[in-house]
C-alpha cells in the first residue's frame, strides 16, 4: 500500500497499538536528532514479531495484522 493511502486515523490507531502491545513510549525532543523515530523502530519490532516484511513503515499487511482480534497482554515481555 503506498504511504499516501495511510490516513491520520490509521497512524493514530497504529501508535495506540504500539503503545499498548510494544511498549512505545512518548517521544521527547526532535526525531531528527535521534535518527529513526521510536514509532518506526517499534513498527519494525512488531513486523519482525509477526513475520511481516520489516519496513518500519505502516503498510497494508501491518495494518491488517493490527486489526486482527487478539489477546490484550503486550507482546514485549514487560509483564513484571
Amino acid at each position: 500500500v503506498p504511504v499516501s493511502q495511510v490516513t491520520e486515523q490509521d497512524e493514530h490507531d497504529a501508535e495506540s497499538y504500539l503503545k499498548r502491545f510494544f511498549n512505545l513510549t512518548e517521544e521527547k525532543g526532535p526525531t531528527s536528532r535521534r535518527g529513526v523515530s521510536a514509532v518506526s523502530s517499534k513498527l519494525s519490532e512488531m513486523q519482525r514479531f509477526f513475520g511481516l516484511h520489516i519496513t518500519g513503515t505502516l503498510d497494508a499487511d501491518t495494518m491488517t495484522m493490527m486489526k486482527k482480534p487478539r489477546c490484550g497482554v503486550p507482546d514485549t515481555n514487560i509483564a513484571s
Partner: protein
Amino acid sequence: FSTFGKNLKWEKNRITYRIVNYTPDMSAPEVDDSVEKALQVWAKVTPLRFTRIHSGTADIMISFGRQAHGDFYPFDGPDGTLAHAFAPGTGIGGDAHFDDDEHFTFRSNRGYILFLVAAHEFGHSLGLSHSDDPGALMYPVYSYRNPDTFVLPRDDVNGIQSLYGRNSVKDPSVDKPQPPTTPDVCDSTMVLDAVATLRGEMLFFKDSFFWRSFPQSNTPQLSLITNFWPKAPTHIDAAYESQQSDRVFLFKDRRVWAFAGYNRVRGYPKTLSSFGLPRSVKKIDAALYDVESGKTLFFVDRSYYSYDETRKTMDQGFPKRVDQTFSGLTGKVTAALQYRGYTYIYSGPYMFEYSLRTGRLFRVLRNSYFLRC
C-alpha cells in the same frame, strides 16, 4: 515460546481457580466446561493440577467484564482485545479477564470460542508470554481451531514444560497425539501438500497451515488453514483454483471442498467421482488448472486425468502417463501450479517448470522458489 521469566511462575503444582461471573452468551455449564477443558490443556503436559473453588480468593480468578472493569487495562468493545490475564503472583496475579463485549461461543465459529481464548489466557496465568510462532496457542492473534480435535502445539508444550516440567503421570492406555509443529518455509527438504492460486495470490499448503504469497508483499504470510476457512480440511492432498468458477477446491482422500473467497460453497464436500474420476481413485496427488484450455489436470500416482471445467466432464483418452507428457518427470507428483503461463509440477522437494503445450522442461527449481527464502 517466551515466558515472563523464571521467577514469574507458581511455586506449587496445585492451583485453584474460581469462575467469578458468567457471560450471557453461553450457559453456565458451557462456561464451566470450556474453562475446565482449557485448564486441562496445560495439565495434560505438566504436573499442574487445577481445583475449582466457589468462594474466596483463588490463584486464578476468572471473570467477564466490559470497558473499565477494575484494573488498569480497560477493554475496547467488540473485537480488538478479546481478553487478558496476569502473570503468576499474589492478588491480581494469575487472574484472567474476558471482554464481555465479545460474543463467546462453546463450539461455533460464529463468535470467539471461549475454550480457545481461555486456554491462551491461562497460558499467561501460568507464566507464559506471547510466542511469535503463528501455529502456537500463545500466538497473540486469535485463530479458529476445532475445539474437539485441539492438541496443544509443540511450541507451547516446550514453553510450559520449561517452567513446570513434564507430566510424570503417564497413562499407557491413552496414546497421545503428537503436538503439532509449525513447518519452516525455508526448509529445503520440505514437501508441500498442495499449491494453488487464489485471485492473484499463491497458496502453499503444508499440514494445517498455508503460506500466502502475493505480489505486493515480500514475505509469505503463514496462517492456519482453518483461520481462513474454518471448516476446511488440513493435511490436504491437492488444491486448485478454477478461474472459470472463481472457486478454490481442496482435496483430501475421497472428498472435495469448494470455497468462493472466504465462503464455503454450499453442497460441498463432494466426492471425487462427482468430478468424473473413476471410483477406483481413492485420492489424488495434485491438481492443476490450465488457463489456456480451461481444463483441470488431476494427478494420480504416475498418471493424470483431464477434466473439462466448462462441460464438467472428464475428457476421453485419459488417464495418460505423466512422463509421456512431462519429460523427465519420473518421481511422484506432490503438487502442481500454473503461474504466468508456466506450469510447475512439484515432485518431493523439487519443482519442475514446463510449457504445458509442448511438455518441454525449462528448469528444475527448489520448492521454496516462490517462497522468497
